[in-house]
């Protein structure tokens, strides 16, 4: 029982990342009708927002103090963090909390990146065939990840979670099961964070007039345009939102997985599978399939299961996708009429 709960929890945080990326992919596909192969790159850029913010915060001033000597007899170098020097205790807290705080930086940055991307490139591809859209966004993904590689190197850059959350939570105690189920705090936070973001996006689409117009545009873009609404502008904003969602997923994921330049593509492939399983064009399906596949993957990586079917953890997601596509071609919750052929 404990093992099962633990595996479900393990799957949920990864599933959260899948769900957030797949949500953005579906949002963009549903509104703009564009398959964005650069969406994984947005996830990666978000993660590197956190890395950059952390680097800026930990910029150090090096002073040589001739009165103190190192064990080698040379004057000791004293490194003082600029932020700590300026802000004192608050600076220390800021450095400690650099990952969550960098959300504040990431939101505008990702929004701008998303809007520039849509206005500058994707807008010109609405009328082109899907293959062209895939190809140009694929090229963009390569360019973005190579730029990141140039500036940050090829090695993963680990980011620490705030010390307050770096331990493990006794989830068993919280659930009243008595037995201890140790689970890293940060992953728990990631789970709730992703749920919150998903909730916000759904609430935005469901309960605001703006969201209503966007939903209407997803259904029938021409009619909405005929009603005198500048639907293109709304869709640009939607692309920006999708970009922010992917970016935030990346920011918060950095303590779980040290970011490197190709993490975006790794996640993108899986997120596409998630979208296909959930049903192209269905937001709910994307989220549900994201969590479902995350949990399945975590169960498949249990030793008990791996000893029966070796390597199942590597391919389970793809296998599920194949089975789903063969049995229910529209995916779990696919809408009728979206990408039917």
């Amino acid at each position, binding site marked *: 029982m404990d093992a099962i709960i633990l595996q479900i929890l393990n799957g949920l945080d990864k599933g959260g990342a899948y769900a957030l990326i797949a949500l953005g992919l579906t949002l963009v596909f549903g509104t703009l009708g564009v398959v964005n192969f650069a969406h994984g790159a947005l996830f990666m850029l978000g993660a590197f927002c956190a890395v950059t913010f952390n680097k800026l915060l930990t910029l150090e001033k090096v002073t040589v103090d001739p009165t103190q000597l190192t064990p080698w007899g040379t004057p000791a170098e004293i490194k003082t963090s600029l932020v700590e020097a300026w802000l004192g205790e608050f600076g220390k807290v800021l450095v400690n909390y650099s990952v969550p705080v960098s959300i504040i930086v990431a939101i505008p940055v990702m929004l701008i990146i998303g809007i520039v991307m849509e206005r500058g490139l994707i807008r010109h591809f609405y009328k*082109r065939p899907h293959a062209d859209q895939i190809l140009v966004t694929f090229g963009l993904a390569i*360019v973005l990840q190579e730029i990141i590689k140039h500036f940050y190197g090829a090695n993963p850059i680990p980011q620490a979670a705030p010390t307050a959350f770096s331990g493990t939570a006794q989830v068993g105690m919280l659930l009243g099961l008595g037995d201890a189920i140790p689970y890293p705090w940060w992953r728990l936070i990631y789970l709730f964070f992703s749920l919150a973001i998903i909730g916000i996006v759904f609430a935005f689409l469901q309960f605001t007039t703006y969201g209503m117009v966007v939903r209407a545009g997803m259904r029938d873009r021409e009619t909405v345009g005929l009603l005198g609404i500048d639907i293109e502008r709304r869709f640009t904003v939607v692309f920006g939102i999708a970009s922010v969602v992917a970016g935030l997923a990346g920011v918060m994921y950095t303590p779980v997985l040290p970011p490197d330049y190709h993490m975006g593509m790794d996640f993108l492939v899986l997120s596409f599978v998630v979208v296909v399983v959930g049903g192209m064009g269905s937001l709910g399906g994307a989220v549900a399939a994201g969590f479902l596949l995350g949990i399945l993957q975590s169960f498949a990586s249990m030793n008990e299961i791996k000893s029966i079917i070796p390597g199942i953890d590597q391919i389970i997601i793809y296998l599920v996708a194949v089975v789903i596509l063969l049995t229910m071609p529209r995916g779990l919750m696919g809408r009728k009429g979206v990408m039917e052929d």
Partner: protein
Amino acid sequence: MFGNLSRQDWVMFLGFSAVVLLAPILFQPIGAAYPAILEKFCIFGLFAIGFNILFGLTGYLSFGHAAFLGVGSYATVWSFKLFTMNVIPAIAMSIIFAGIFALVIGFISLRRSGIYFSILTLAFAQMSYNMAYSVLTPLTNGETGLQLTLKDPRIVDAMFITPGTGLPRSTLFGLEISGGGLGGFYFTAAALIIGFYISLRIFRSPFGLMLKAIKSNQNRMRYTGFNTRPYLMAAFVISGIYAGLAGSLMAAVDPLAGPERMQWTASGEVVLMTILGGVGTLIGPVIGAAIIKYFENIFSGFNETALNSVFSFLPHTLRDPLVKLLSLFVGEGWSLTLGLVFMAIVIFLPGGIMEGVRLIASLFKKGGNGNKPAVSGHAQPAE
């Protein structure tokens, strides 16, 4: 048998063969006349021709063709290890395995079209890559890659030849293929020419027309009573076999195989080659492959010192920022250049180099007799 090839086709085929066979002389001036790079031109040309049979004719964009390349390479190295260093059985084995693999993947992926198809093939390729890296390590030797060793059984060779010292080289009945000689190049060149001929025949055959019809309107094909699935399946398997053959040749000229050959970047590369040369044209993919491999060779060789010496005529204040900027694009940054070129081609010249050539040619024609509008030169939308 040769009925459906026009005189023009034969001229093109003979010209193509002549250029390929004379490549060691023709490519002398651009410094690409040594076997290693010529072999690369041929192998990737073959890969791109095969990919073009699927993407160019049917419009199905596969993002997982590198998986077949990898399977071909592994099969070849295993044939070298187990049976003989002769390349013929190795190639036969690669073709069989790549064909079966393509049959399985095609059977599932071709149930969907458009984006779904691209995603499914991408997923399969990633799955193969992941498995080659982890579970299948006994078969693939994981990250290190599959290599020849001195302890390999080589059953057939052991019966006829007394093994020499050191690792044996792959041969074609005595003619050395691996080892960087011209033998390897002519072998790959022969494969390329045969591959090109088959692709030419497919393009001109009723089967090829059927595939083109699927690209332009699959629904209409279905309404007229054609079951399109078998045609798509055949195209997919053929193009998978081409990829397997390319992988096999890759392993024949340099007997090792690693999982990175199956990664999505490798699949993306062949898409890029085809697009750059011209989708749906016969020669385009080969040209695209040669251009990319040639510039990869040149660009990745550059570094900051080399750039500094190139721009040594400039004053320091100008040179330093320029070299800094250009070093983004050369050496390690070659992929960045590739990505940018890729985007530029897709955005501005979706027909690739062949369309560019046609546009320029039509410009000249227009200059020749001004009263005739050059209709044929206009870019036609793909769908």
